[in-house]
């Protein structure tokens, strides 16, 4: 669905941020980009969203995929406009496309469990609820691809786990293609089918790990041995990668 061919990036005359990164994202896949801060994973996501241009290499969109209408991005911060209520924030993308109806907005707010907060303003919502509104805003355009840039990094552990559960079940039901940037190993293992491990200075893909479990993925998975084992494996892989880098 999306293919990156030898994408490299330098900012002005700075050092190389991404070094010939090639990546294939299949339709309906949940892929995490995992790596330490400064490995260029967010930059990679922003290049896919065309918020940055690659210095060299190319991004190819398949099947008539339109970057502006078929791809949604969820940023690290909720980026809600304080003067707009939850539903008005959610409907902003539609409004800017010339559609002033609120129905789709109400539907996605219900989907993220905020049907009681539609008329609340951002300053009346908790951090987790604000992020839910931001996710609803990304979903309101009915995208095929969801790009998420460490969306839960600023939330506490309990809220993060709950939102992970919700995201997982939404993805299972809807079948979007999700690219999820994170530096949290257990989050990556819990959510993704594929974890792309990145190294830094310059940002490169180290390896692509397939994550598979017996049985359905639900919140119960966190208590299972197969999950714990996979997290430990990936953690030690990351340690080795960075030990080599130092």
């Amino acid at each position, binding site marked *: 669905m999306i293919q990156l061919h030898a994408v490299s990036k330098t900012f002005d005359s700075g050092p190389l941020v991404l070094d010939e990164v090639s990546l294939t994202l299949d339709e309906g896949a949940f892929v995490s980009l995992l790596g330490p801060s400064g490995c260029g994973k967010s930059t990679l996501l922003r290049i896919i969203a065309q918020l940055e241009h690659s210095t060299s290499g190319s991004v190819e969109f398949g099947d008539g995929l339109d970057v*502006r209408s078929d791809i949604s991005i969820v*940023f690290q911060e909720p980026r809600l406009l304080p*003067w707009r209520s939850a539903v008005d924030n959610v409907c902003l993308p539609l409004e*800017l*496309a010339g559609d002033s109806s609120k129905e789709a907005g109400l539907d996605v707010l219900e989907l993220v469990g905020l049907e009681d907060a539609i008329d609340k*303003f951002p300053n009346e919502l908790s951090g987790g609820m604000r992020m839910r509104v931001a996710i609803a805003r990304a979903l309101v355009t009915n995208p095929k691809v969801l790009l998420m840039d460490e969306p839960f990094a600023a939330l506490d552990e309990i809220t993060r786990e709950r939102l992970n559960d919700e995201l997982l079940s939404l993805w299972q039901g809807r079948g979007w293609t999700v690219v999820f940037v994170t530096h949290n190993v257990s989050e990556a293992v819990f959510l993704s089918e594929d974890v792309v491990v990145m190294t830094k200075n310059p940002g490169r893909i180290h390896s692509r790990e397939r994550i598979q479990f017996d049985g359905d993925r639900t919140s119960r998975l966190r208590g299972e041995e197969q999950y714990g084992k996979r997290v430990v494996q990936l953690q030690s892989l990351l340690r080795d990668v960075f030990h080599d880098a130092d």
Partner: protein
Amino acid sequence: MTRIRSAAKQVWPPLLLALLFFAAWEAVVSLSGNRNLQYILPQPTHIFAEAVKHWEALRGATWNSALMALSGFSLSLITGCLIAFIMSQAKWVERSAYPYAIFLQTVPIVAIAPIIILWFEAGRQSVIVISFIISLFPIITSTTTGLTHIPREWDELFTVYDANWWQRLIKLRIPTAVPFMINGARISAGLSVVGAIVGEYFTGLSTGGGDDFGLAYLLMSTQADANYSYLFATTFAAAMMGLCIFGGVNGISKWIMTAGHFEEV
């Protein structure tokens, strides 16, 4: 109920302090038996009696001056926002126009008042223009800042959604600028009062004996008549007027900020 109680908590202490202050003033001046002191520092009761006696004139003058100040302030608000909008269109426009905006702030108002009267003739219009000029600058600078300093995160959001220039202006830049504009307006309101009184001094409004005189005329005439109790009463009226205009603008600002869910800057 709790709101009323908390409001009372805010009002009572300063009111009590004022009462104590006036009581002490009254006591010191009357007990001193010093004629000279009583002449240049009239007792509060005498000032109050004088205020009651000239109630009609004081009320009329305060109202006229307030009208001048509010007219100047309103003009500043409208013109300032328009100028800010033009200046925010391009960096080079802002850079070329900014020195002249600074000129507005740095030129002593008393230095240009004669020219304004020369152009607009002595009368209310000149007073309004002087009040307008002195209160314009804060609106221009703060609104321009608001219109041009759009947080990068929001700007990017509008890029992602392919917003056009007009949508960006209406749905992003203007709402972002509102709290900035309000901060400018708070400063501007106080300045417009100063401008109105200074303007009235220069135009000598209603030395001809009409009933459209303002506080400056009363200040000048009571000073000339050496009626110092009346002078003090007029000064208090001017202070009250300034306080009311500032309080009113502050109240409206607070209401806009809360009702519109804007964030303080």
